[in-house]
């Protein structure tokens, strides 16, 4: 077996004196979609933000333990979080296209922000990323329109295109459909299916149905503890742990 793309080892994290994540242990294989489910406040978002070191941007945040990306510890002292985030992209709960930019500029914003956009590449990169995000056909005639003029679902796909444009290995998605209607959600889920294999996707979701639909592996977090991680089919038909069963069948506290 090859080494996992992401290996979370004895990970603890928190804010100030409060520990939010307790001793997480998780391996994520390259090219898979892993869903993180759990009740509000269980630490899902904190967890996903430790994977691209966004967690530490909040005052008082701390992390212990290790997160290995291709066997390299993200929290080693010589790792530059800015460089790391170009390999581990992220999509947020609410679509956040940059309001002052056109659709095209939004897509290449990552390259421009990092000063790695070479002249004359803009069009090609924008088209490739928009095609990957299944948005090209809808916006190809209006690339100069502001990104904020798109519908919510399109904005979210624009944000995915923006993340893909910097060519990451891992894509973190923090409840990417929570602000979208069912059709827009279905488009994003279809997109996740098409990105599988090429990217390693970690998806935090409130919707168990969504986790069941798009992921191969599902991890259940409860009060900062990783209760169970298993094949998604197994988790949703016959979970091992009683707490998982209670949560996914709606018998929770």
């Amino acid at each position, binding site marked *: 077996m090859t080494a996992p793309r992401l290996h979370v080892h004895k990970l603890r994290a928190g804010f100030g004196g409060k520990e939010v994540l307790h001793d997480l242990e998780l391996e994520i294989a390259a090219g898979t979609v892993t869903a993180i489910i759990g009740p509000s406040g269980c630490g899902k978002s904190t967890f996903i933000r430790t994977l*691209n070191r*966004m967690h530490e*941007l909040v005052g008082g945040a701390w992390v212990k333990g290790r997160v290995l990306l291709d066997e390299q510890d993200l929290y080693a002292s010589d790792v530059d979080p*800015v*460089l*790391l*985030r*170009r390999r581990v*992209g*992220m999509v*947020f709960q*609410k679509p*956040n*296209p*940059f*309001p*002052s*930019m056109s659709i095209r500029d939004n897509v290449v*914003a*990552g390259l*421009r*922000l*990092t*000063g790695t956009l070479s002249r004359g590449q803009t069009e090609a990169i924008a088209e490739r990323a928009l095609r990957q995000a299944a948005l090209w056909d809808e916006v190809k005639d209006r690339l100069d329109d*502001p990104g*904020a003029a798109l519908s919510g679902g399109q904005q979210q796909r624009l*944000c995915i295109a*923006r*993340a893909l444009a*910097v060519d990451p290995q891992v894509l973190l998605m923090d409840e990417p459909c929570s602000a979208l209607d069912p059709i827009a959600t279905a488009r994003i889920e279809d997109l996740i299916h098409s990105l599988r294999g090429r990217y390693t996707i970690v998806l935090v979701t409130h919707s168990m149905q969504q986790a069941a639909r798009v992921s191969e592996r599902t991890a259940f977090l409860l009060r900062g503890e990783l209760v169970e991680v298993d094949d998604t089919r197994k988790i949703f038909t016959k979970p091992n742990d009683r707490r998982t069963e209670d949560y996914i069948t709606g018998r929770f506290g």
Partner: protein
Amino acid sequence: MSDSPRPLTGAPPLGERLIEAALAGCAAISLLTSAAIVLVLAQETFAFFHAVPITSFLFDTEWTPLFERARFGIWPLVCGTALTSAVALLVAGPLGVLAAIYLAEFATPRARDRLKPMIEVLAGIPTLVYGYFALRVVTPCLALVIPDLQGFNALSAGLVMGLMILPTVCSLGEDALHAVPQTLREGAVALGAGRLATLFLIVVPAARSGLLAALTLGLSRALGETMIVAIAAGQQAHLTLDPRSPVETMSAYIVQISLGDAAAGTVAYRTIFAVGAALFALTFATNALAQRWIAAARRVG
């Protein structure tokens, strides 16, 4: 639960109607006041233009209403106003925006809580004090560097006026930057953007309309400011864009006349209404223009 139908019609209670009437009355007072001002201004202005042709008001280049050979060209006053306001904006614009960026993006919450009141103290200083500060401190200091600076000049009045509007620009600018959603910053950071790239390529452009609004408000305060320019800029209406020379602004001229340099009812006295109307038109135009920029910035945003 009772199933009897509750009425869907009926007049609102008396108390509610009284409160509504009282609130409408309050709103009416300010409306009526504004209307009265505009009316008086219009009336006196018409009376003025009855005596002085509007062409000479708009096309003459000299403003000497108190001379025997009175000339009524408004441009020297407009120039004085524009010059001092431009100097003020050149000071308060960059300083205010940079200070706002520091407060919003770099200062710790504790530092911000201490610095912001200190900056806002500047707004509480009487403009009279600013005026004498410009005349007695800033002008002598500037004279050491700029040899041919005159005792009354647009430069030092403008500089000090800049200081005066700095808190407005800074405070509103900080609010604008603060209002940029955290999600945009996170979006940029998640793409691997550094702090400065995030700030200048994402946050500042996103706050564009708010920053423009801050500058506009500062500018309107500068356009209408009276005491500083009346004290430190001199009261000589010259058609000049040289900041080292004395100028007279529209507001300073109005003060000068109202303090009794002209007898009531004379043409010279009526000039203040014409100048007032012109000042009103100028601020109105500035605001309207700025509103359009802001709206445009917001449409993009």
